[in-house]
């Protein structure tokens, strides 16, 4: 037997699963040679810029293009009328609605696209958009979703008037989009009627925006001669874009190439198909030259996919010991003027019905109404697996309120209600099967690490002196890795994903996936999976994504699905290769397959030391010496349809101190334990946790998109929209446990969205906890100094000597 040290050395040199290897992508990024969409320059390329509406709701009386067309360097000005003959003035959304590409007779939200100017360069285009004269007739504006279904509410979507069969359910009002329910209403109501204790808490999850560093953009290039369309764009789902563009334009998919180059952060903002993409494609087809469109920051925040905007009510029924008997959740969802949520098509409220969280809840009922308002479309984005942020927020806030009402410590009430380790896989009463977890162990680990008892004691002393100290807790369960084709599809295409791996004769590997990284390090981590499966060093494994001409069909990267679905496909494809390799090795060693055993990077004949073939030797043989009847070559493709979602979980604890004089909240400590099953690259995981916690900090403490009554968005630049810098961002402490997923080939669950999903309720829990002794049960976000001071002032805590 080789000694263990030698084997370990070989394993280390592979740099496979579990190794914090440095990232392959970094070389180009640190030398400024990354390739982002706006970096692309093609010969004869023109620039597009948008004419946008100042009004949130108005009829378009006339559009006068003359002055713009007269400006030297302007090639075209397109409006809805120009798109009508191509039937492209409207386009389907991913949620079964339709969306105006360019405003067709009516504008539905402020900054909506009304016309597009195509010019020689971006400077001329910027001048030209001011010369397009649009005459509007203002209409009443609908901003408050609570008034969307009033009898006298202004009707937004004249194209839907009278059509009461919505894509997801009956519509009860012209501004109604859908009603969607999960669970048993009657059984839940009965438990509430008889329960010893019930709590009810209204809470608003504000409209926020992912605001990635790179805004959205594309370069559309139609080759008239070959009738072939190539589009480089900022898309988290290039294959879906190819399918939709083909459906819209009639160009066969085989003549469409979509390329997502390097992407400067996505966070769900780059899943949707935006009017800018469609008009660039149309302009390129019409003019026969490449057309580039890149939005600026104000356009990005004002018009591209926002997140949340859920008006929620959480109710829990429990016994006096705090054991939860039933959960009831009601939601009013503001979807903006067009329903363009990027949900799996069967779930108009996404995976909101994961709202039973980490708890063993016998019965529950969820009711969601989506409505139209005069705001931009979107709603599912921002590091969130289809509304799981809202689901975790409502359960974690409401269980805090229950704890407070019963006078039970917020950690203790969670202990009493956690699903126990032995109950996994656990069927939730709203239809999910939580694959694996161990909440109790993880909770104790966190409470010990921060010395929870000491913190509570310190809080008592501080309260005695009139100081405001808060301890927040969030013990969340996520649902990621969408998803099984039986219940997850986008426009009818199942949400599988894929990997195609090819081993070259000299033993190096090229692999391509159906996912697309926006900074998560796929080029590094996928190589580690293959390295461990095939015993080839990850440094010799090249990973490519994002080019629909080369990558196998996949549904893209969002909802933390790359590792759970793309990673699984990679492992399974690699195992197909190893199975073939075993046959070749048996042939070379003249033994039967079963006589061989695999060790790190080689097949060894059992019991016969020295008789072995490394994978590299097998790879060479695959191209010149294969067994009878076997085809040469060593490659495999796998389209992996996951049997279930995966359910990473986390225990987050946050300690805050509030300055009574100004309302400022300082985060003294944030301890984040995450369990995402098998950990492929711990360094990259920690980086994702830091990033998610920082986004959560930004959302909870400062981000909002306020609208005034005229539908003006009051905060669409980085001066007003809160993006924290180095100085405001707290220091993060990370920890982990490992509870593998039983149904995933590697036991890996996906992690990058957990820190965003779990930290936001934890910040609210901490801020509210600072006031809990004064009967405050909830405070809506954002917890800016201004809003926290209003609570301090209301309670008279800021009186000076």
């Amino acid at each position, binding site marked *: 037997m080789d000694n263990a040290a030698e084997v370990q050395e070989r394993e280390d040199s592979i740099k496979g699963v579990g190794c914090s290897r440095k990232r392959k992508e970094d070389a180009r990024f640190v030398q400024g040679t990354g390739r982002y969409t706006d970096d692309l320059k093609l010969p004869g390329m023109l620039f597009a810029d948008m004419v946008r509406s100042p009004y949130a709701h108005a009829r378009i009386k006339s559009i006068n293009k003359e002055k713009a067309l007269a400006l030297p360097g302007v090639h075209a000005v397109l409006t809805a009328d120009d798109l009508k003959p191509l039937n492209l003035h409207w386009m389907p959304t991913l949620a079964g609605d339709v969306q105006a590409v360019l405003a067709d007779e009516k504008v539905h939200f402020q900054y909506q696209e009304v016309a597009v100017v195509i010019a020689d360069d*971006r400077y001329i285009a910027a001048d030209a958009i001011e010369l397009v004269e649009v005459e509007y007739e203002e209409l009443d504006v609908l901003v408050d979703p609570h008034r969307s279904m009033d009898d006298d509410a202004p009707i937004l979507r004249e194209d839907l008037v009278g059509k009461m069969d919505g894509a997801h359910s009956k519509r009860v009002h012209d501004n109604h989009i859908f009603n969607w329910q999960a669970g048993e209403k009657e059984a839940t109501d009965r438990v509430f009627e008889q329960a010893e204790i019930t709590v009810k808490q209204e809470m608003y999850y504000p409209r926020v925006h992912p605001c990635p560093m790179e805004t959205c953009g594309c370069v559309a290039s139609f080759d008239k001669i070959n009738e072939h369309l190539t589009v480089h764009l900022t898309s988290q789902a290039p294959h879906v874009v190819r399918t939709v563009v083909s459906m819209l334009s009639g160009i066969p998919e085989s003549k469409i190439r979509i390329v997502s180059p390097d992407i400067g952060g996505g966070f769900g903002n780059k899943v949707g198909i935006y009017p800018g993409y469609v008009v660039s494609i149309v302009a390129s087809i019409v003019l026969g030259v490449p057309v580039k469109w890149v939005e600026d920051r104000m356009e990005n925040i004002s018009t591209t996919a926002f997140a949340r905007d859920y008006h929620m009510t959480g109710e829990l029924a429990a016994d006096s010991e705090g054991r939860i008997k039933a959960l009831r959740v009601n939601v009013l969802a503001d979807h903006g003027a067009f329903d363009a949520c990027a949900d799996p098509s069967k779930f108009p409220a996404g995976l909101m019905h994961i709202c039973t969280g980490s708890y063993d809840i016998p019965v529950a009922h969820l009711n969601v109404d989506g409505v139209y308002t005069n705001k931009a479309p979107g709603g599912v984005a921002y590091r969130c697996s289809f509304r799981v942020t809202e689901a975790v927020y409502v359960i974690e806030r409401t269980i805090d309120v229950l704890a407070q009402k019963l006078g039970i410590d917020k950690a203790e009430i969670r202990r009493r209600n956690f699903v126990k380790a032995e109950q996994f896989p656990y069927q939730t009463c709203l239809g999910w099967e939580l694959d694996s977890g161990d909440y109790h162990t993880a909770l104790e680990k966190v409470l010990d690490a921060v010395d929870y008892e000491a913190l509570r004691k310190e809080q008592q002393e501080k309260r005695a002196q009139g100081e405001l100290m808060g301890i927040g807790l969030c013990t969340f369960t996520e649902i990621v890795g969408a998803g099984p084709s039986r219940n997850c599809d986008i426009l009818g295409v199942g949400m599988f994903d894929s990997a195609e791996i090819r081993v070259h004769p000299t033993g190096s590997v090229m692999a391509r996936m159906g996912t697309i990284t926006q900074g998560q390090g796929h080029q590094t981590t996928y190589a580690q999976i293959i390295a461990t499966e095939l015993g080839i060093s990850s440094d010799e494994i090249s990973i490519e994504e994002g080019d629909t001409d080369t990558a196998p069909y996949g549904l893209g990267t969002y909802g933390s699905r790359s590792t759970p679905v793309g990673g699984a496909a990679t492992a399974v494809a690699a195992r197909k290769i190893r199975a073939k390799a075993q046959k070749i090795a048996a042939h070379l060693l003249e033994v039967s397959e079963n006589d061989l055993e695999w060790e790190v990077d080689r097949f060894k004949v059992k019991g016969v030391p020295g008789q072995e073939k490394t994978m590299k030797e097998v790879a060479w043989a695959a191209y010149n010496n294969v067994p009878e009847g076997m085809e040469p070559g060593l490659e495999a493709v796998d389209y992996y349809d996951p049997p279930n979602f995966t359910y990473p979980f986390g225990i987050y604890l946050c300690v805050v101190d509030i300055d009574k004089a100004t309302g400022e909240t300082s985060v003294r400590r944030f301890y984040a334990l995450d369990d995402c099953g098998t950990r492929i690259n711990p360094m990259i995981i920690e980086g994702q946790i830091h990033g998610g916690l920082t986004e959560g900090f930004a959302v909870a403490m*400062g981000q*909002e998109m306020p609208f005034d009554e005229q539908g003006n968005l009051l905060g669409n630049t980085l001066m007003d929209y*809160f993006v924290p*810098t180095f100085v405001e961002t707290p220091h993060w402490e990370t920890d982990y446990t490992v509870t593998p997923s039983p149904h995933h080939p590697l036991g890996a669950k996906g992690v990058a969205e957990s820190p965003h999903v779990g930290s936001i309720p934890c910040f609210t829990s901490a801020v509210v906890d600072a006031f809990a002794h004064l009967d405050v049960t909830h405070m809506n976000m954002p917890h*800016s*100094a201004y809003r926290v001071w209003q609570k301090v002032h209301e309670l008279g805590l*800021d009186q000076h*000597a």
Partner: protein
Amino acid sequence: MIPAEFEYHKATSIQDAINQLGAHEDSKLLAGGHSLLPMMKLRFAEPPTLIDINGIEELRGIRLEGDTICIGAMTTENELIESEILQQHCPLLVEAARLVADPQVRNRGTIGGDVVHGDPGNDHPAVMLALDATLVLQGPGGERQQPANGFFLGTYWNDLQEHEILVELRVPVIRQGVGHGYSKLKRKTGDYAVAGSPVVVELDGDVCRDIRIALTNVAPMAIRAEAAENVLRGKVIDDALIEQAAAEVIAACDPAEDLRGDIQYKSHMAAEMARRSIRAALQQARG
């Protein structure tokens, strides 16, 4: 993102700049450019001509003249922070410059641009009021000196005459028995102040001989909270008096409401910033 077209001229001297202002109607001076260019990029401002005054040596430099410090209008925020003269003789200005915007902007933004721009959120106007500074202005009619007090009249409204250029700012050297305090509340680096308050106090023994309390971004322009000053001037300042002064600061405020806060919050924060600055100034004056 892209400014409208304009003509660009580089001024070689102060007089040259004044002449060019006269020669080109509606022209604007380009100093640091970090107030003007962003407005132009969003097409709010479209001056037909820009006159770049970055090359004028006369507008640069910080020098000590007796008990007065002379600061060229084109001195950048970082040059204020790194100036030994100011660190020793006028630390308030260094403290204030440190809290303006971010490192890159502080390499370009100038004290002169900040003083005359006219946005209520600019930081240096209130500092000039607290220091009882003097503005040295030069125009077609020659040079004149104008106390900072009385220069700021409203939002984008000050006493700068037509085709006049701010050339220099003169601030008194800090003397024995004089203390300063500076407090600024903002949501994050690079944001406007919710409220800011520079304070300079002059003690005669324990008695407050004079005090100037200035406020940033809580009125149409930088203001002095005179009523609050009168509560403290000539008295031995104690906590009770500071509270009385704080109440006067609230009364003096007339802030604009936005997502940083409503009138009540911003006024109360102006009072809190004034409290902190008064206490810091007293501690320093008492030595």
